[in-house]
């Protein structure tokens, strides 16, 4: 017996010389909705869009209809069309509308190709569709690399002696030195709205001893970090959050700029060559409606995941996952005796320090951080709660 089925139907017609009319319907075991769009043939931009829910899960789902207008003007052939649909329509309206809109948009593009073929046949009556489409595909393209695969760029200059002139960090006291190991800033991370100076100011305000800048696939230059340290008189360490096929990894000590997706084992080799360390970020982040527990996964089973053999530590407190998911990660870390860390995963200023990591040795730079993480001389803490700041 099937446990789930989804059907989507799309029809594209030519409304007039300048316009395609696209109608899409999505119906599955949970949802039923439809979308109609009109697309201008001149620029393949969405000129009109309407949607309607027929079957939903919450009584508020039809609120999504009004926000479909966010897609007006989107051009189907823009490189970021899919990303915009996911991020804008998917978030402001509904992800199921976004899914159906992508289906409609792709169908409209296919229809426009068919129309282009028909037009081409005016000059070449025997032109077959297959040949026409292949001819378009083989047209010279820019020598762009295949997007999405990892590229290790040139390493930035090695850290200079400037690092030794950084303001002295607060030495680890009896309570240790507390550092937020997982922070995103704008514009280094496109998903963050937190300017780096404001993030540091907030971190100081709430009494943290330092932060790590771990923007997505972004290497902060040593002199940039040093300038921040000097400007704020605060410990600012450089890290990177890199996506592998096994999920996101927080990496410290790696100067190489890695874009796209990299295999975890290859990243491990890079990190080892650089003398760095790697933490698996939010390893048990669940889904919107259910968590890993609902799939039947136990901490004992999770402990056997091969990816955990390739990391130096596990992030057991992350500000973007549920309490249950953090607790699950903590059980796994304890079970396999891996060091456990905390980080806010802040994307907004107010999120800094929600979780952090307490170190019992003084951390002055990335080398100290790496040594402490590898030795396990650290502890994840719910910092804001501890300070009564939530």
């Amino acid at each position, binding site marked *: 017996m099937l446990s789930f089925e989804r059907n989507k139907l799309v029809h594209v017609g030519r*409304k007039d010389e300048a316009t395609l009319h696209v109608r899409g319907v999505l119906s599955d075991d949970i949802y039923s909705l439809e979308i109609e769009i009109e697309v201008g043939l001149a620029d393949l931009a969405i000129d009109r869009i309407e949607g309607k829910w027929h079957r939903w899960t*919450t009584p508020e789902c039809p609120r999504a209809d009004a926000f479909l207008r966010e897609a007006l003007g989107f051009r189907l052939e823009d490189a970021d069309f899919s990303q915009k649909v996911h991020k804008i329509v998917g978030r402001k309206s509904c992800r199921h509308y976004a899914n159906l809109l992508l289906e409609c948009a792709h169908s409209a593009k296919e229809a426009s190709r068919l129309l282009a073929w028909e037009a081409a046949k005016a000059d070449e009556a025997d032109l077959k569709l297959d040949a026409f489409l292949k001819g378009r595909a083989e047209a010279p393209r820019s020598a762009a690399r295949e997007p999405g695969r990892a590229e290790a760029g040139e390493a930035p200059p090695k850290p200079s002696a400037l690092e030794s002139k950084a303001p002295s960090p607060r030495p680890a006291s009896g309570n240790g030195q507390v550092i937020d190991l997982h922070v995103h800033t704008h514009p280094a991370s496109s998903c963050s709205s937190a300017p780096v100076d404001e993030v540091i100011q907030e971190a100081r305000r709430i009494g943290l001893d330092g932060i790590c800048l771990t923007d997505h696939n972004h290497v902060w230059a040593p002199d940039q970090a040093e300038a921040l340290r000097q400007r704020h008189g605060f410990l600012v360490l450089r890290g990177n959050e890199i996506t592998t096929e096994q999920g996101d990894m927080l990496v410290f000590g790696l100067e190489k700029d890695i874009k796209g997706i990299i295999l975890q084992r290859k990243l491990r080799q890079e990190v080892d060559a650089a003398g760095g360390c790697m933490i698996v970020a939010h390893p048990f982040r669940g889904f919107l409606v259910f968590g890993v527990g609902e799939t039947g996964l136990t901490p004992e089973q999770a402990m056997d995941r091969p990816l955990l053999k390739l990391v130096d530590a596990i992030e057991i407190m992350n500000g973007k996952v549920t309490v249950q998911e953090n607790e699950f990660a903590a059980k796994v870390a304890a079970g396999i005796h891996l060091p456990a860390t905390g980080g806010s995963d802040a994307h907004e200023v107010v999120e800094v320090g929600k979780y952090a990591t307490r170190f019992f040795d003084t951390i002055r730079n990335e080398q100290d951080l790496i040594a402490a993480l590898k030795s396990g001389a650290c502890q994840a803490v719910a910092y804001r709660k501890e300070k009564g700041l939530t």
Partner: protein
Amino acid sequence: MAERPIFSRNRCTSVLKVDDRTMRSTCRLQDTLTDAEVEIDVRLPDLEIVAVRSGFKRTMGDVCREPNEALQKVIGVRVGPGMLKIIKGLVGESSDCGQAAFMVEECCHGIILSFTKETLMQAPLGEELTADHYGEMVRKNIRLYNRCAAFAPGSSMVEGIEPPQ
């Protein structure tokens, strides 16, 4: 409305529980230009993709010359948050493999929605009860807050719930 039909598409994604440890999700595409199928096997409870199969029976113009070879790169990936970025990155966004990668994503969505369906079946009927039920879900999983229009500020689903900080 009188208009000239140009293109039509029919896509079906179905999920089957093969045995206690395996779920199989199949995406079938039939449209004016393409007839294709992509299937993934996912191992429970980790939701790890353990097998991928594909077949492009009919296609026109640019098509992934070796769709199956490219798709094997997703073996080992777990169905979960962030998977779309990983699948796109591994399979590549070049047009000739774009449809195959999209069909893998659709298969993965099917797996997730099969679990979502199970969870939602536990929701009570009746509008007031439903609002309370979903509000409780948001309190337990604050990622839901403002995740879409239904859970955005102003919705009864999040009434009385503080925005996440």
